[in-house]
């Protein structure tokens, strides 16, 4: 009898019951939980960097301790200019993770919106595809260089540039996934039941296309972080004193033999971030699919 009541309560779905289902399934996956914890720590570090380490340390030159290995004073050692690497890695998280995640999220949303229009309306699709053909003719590195040269190097401009460069790719990839979903019977069925295009996209099409999109997005975050690093290295990216992880790796190249820790810590930070994002992505994909687990 109590079961019956419980069932009846469950019949009326509300947003949070669907959400709690996803959470339950997510928590059942240990790898995803570990990835999630690491990512939470990284996000925590990003937000509370100034609480953990005083900001002055990022650019404070310690002429007496250039290229010193990790010690109690400098946990991660110091670089060629005597700056504390621990502080730089901590503050670098804000820049690198911020650029990667921010640019990916923005371009994902824009890309998904354009792709949905393509999937639903044939005529718009024709026009949009031709525009994208033209845009993709320009090499993306060249486009990024030009944009950054015009706007000047700053964290915000870097994000805007990476977003512009990666939107066409997102549109193409998401569109091909959506086209597969749009022709499914249950989409037609929802239409016959009177579902309007916007609801159709949000409730039926995107949720069923989410797996490849999430995998795609998580991969993109790491590649965005690397692109940011590459652009910084060329000198059009984030300006030098800023502790961008990729840029730090690039400085470390010259001292790789004498001071390997200079590359080790930013490198490990990039790898750890990418790994945790990928684990979370995999976990989300499984958790969003009601077929996994009971």
């Amino acid at each position, binding site marked *: 009898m109590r*079961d*019956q009541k419980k*069932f*009846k309560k*469950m*019949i*009326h*779905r509300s947003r949070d019951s669907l959400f709690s289902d996803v959470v339950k399934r997510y928590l059942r996956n240990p790898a995803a939980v570990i990835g999630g914890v690491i990512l939470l720590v990284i996000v925590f570090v990003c937000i509370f960097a100034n609480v953990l380490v005083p900001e002055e340390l990022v650019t404070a030159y310690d002429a007496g301790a250039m290229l010193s290995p990790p010690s109690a004073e400098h946990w991660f050692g110091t670089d060629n200019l005597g700056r504390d690497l621990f502080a730089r890695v901590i503050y670098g998280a804000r820049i690198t993770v911020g650029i990667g995640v921010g640019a990916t999220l923005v371009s994902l949303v824009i890309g998904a919106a354009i792709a949905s229009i393509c999937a639903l309306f044939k005529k718009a699709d*024709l026009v949009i595809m031709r525009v994208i053909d033209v845009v993709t003719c320009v090499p993306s590195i060249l486009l990024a260089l030009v944009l950054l040269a015009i706007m000047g190097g700053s964290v915000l401009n870097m994000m805007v540039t990476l977003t512009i460069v990666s939107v066409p790719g997102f549109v193409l990839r998401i569109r091909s996934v959506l086209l597969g979903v749009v022709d*499914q*019977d*249950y989409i*037609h*069925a*929802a*239409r*016959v*039941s*009177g*579902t*309007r295009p916007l*609801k159709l996209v949000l*409730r*039926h099409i995107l*949720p*069923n296309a989410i797996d490849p999109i999430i995998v795609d997005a998580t991969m993109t975050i790491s590649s965005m972080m690397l692109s940011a690093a590459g652009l910084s290295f060329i000198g059009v990216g984030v300006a030098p004193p800023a502790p961008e992880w990729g840029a730090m790796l690039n400085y470390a190249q010259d001292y790789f033999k004498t001071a390997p820790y200079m590359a080790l810590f930013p490198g490990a930070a990039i790898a750890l971030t990418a790994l945790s994002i990928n684990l979370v992505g995999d976990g989300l994909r499984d958790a*969003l*699919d*009601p*077929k996994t687990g009971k």
Partner: protein
Amino acid sequence: MMQAMQNEKEFKQNHYFLEAEELTMHFPAKSDGLGRPVSWIHAADAVSFRVPKGKTLGVVGESGCGKSTVGKMLLNIYRPTSGKIYYEGTELTGLSAKERRPYAKRMQLVWQDPYSSLDPRLRAGDIIAEGIDNFHLASSAAQRRERVEQLMTMCGLFPEQAANYPHQFSGGQRQRICIARALATDPEFIVCDEAVSALDVSIQAQIINLLKDLQEELSLTYLFISHDLNIVHFISDEIIVMYLGQIVERGTMEKVYQNRAHPYTKALFSATPAFTPAEKQRKNRMILEGDVPSPVDPPQGCRFRGRCPYASKRCEEEPGWHEVESDHFVRCHLFD
């Protein structure tokens, strides 16, 4: 305006509440470099029929004959290339999307494949409630829940299963969900597109009985599309036989069954395997030569002539309609 009202009255008198007039659907098959089609798939060509109110019109034919296309045109999934659809005297094909919307509530579809026609990410209850939400048919969450429970019970499901996902149901139960979803908006007319073909034999009978029960209870009208003649024979009051996008024979079910006129209808009935010994004895088999031709640029004249054992010179011309008996028509030169 007066004319329209007159029409409407007439339709109601005749009990034909849905009429298709010269419905034609051509899909582009091949395109040239600029995306302009150079050849067309003739999915349906000048298909006209009337659906009697509260009855079942069976549509039979083999794959590629356009029977599903016809159903999808009626429900606005495909926009017909030409032709008109009248619903109780109103011409649906002339309406704007906004004007057409109320009719979406009154016409529904049950799909062939109960596996691909349910959104795998939604719970059964929400799938069924989709139409209720879209047309704001429930004023409160409690009312919505009540309606979903009522629909599920009506279709032989347990209301407790509303919280389950589609993959947790068997094929037959999934088809019941599809039917419940179709009924959610209180429709008058339902297109059943091969609604039992994907199911196991013992489950097919359950679904057919359910459809019949619902028809009586809610005075529904069905367009029952199937390739299975035995099932169409059992469920339909009237029948149309389609071949390569055209109707070749139409009439009341019993008359067409007893007195098959078109050579294709004869072949179709004889090809349907019989399993009772009595039936087997009665049957004279007629096996057709060759394959169904491609619907891309179909043959001129009678489309069946390439496979017809009685084909002659005159079949190169388009055949006209002939009355075999009252309420039974055939499109074949043999009846000239």
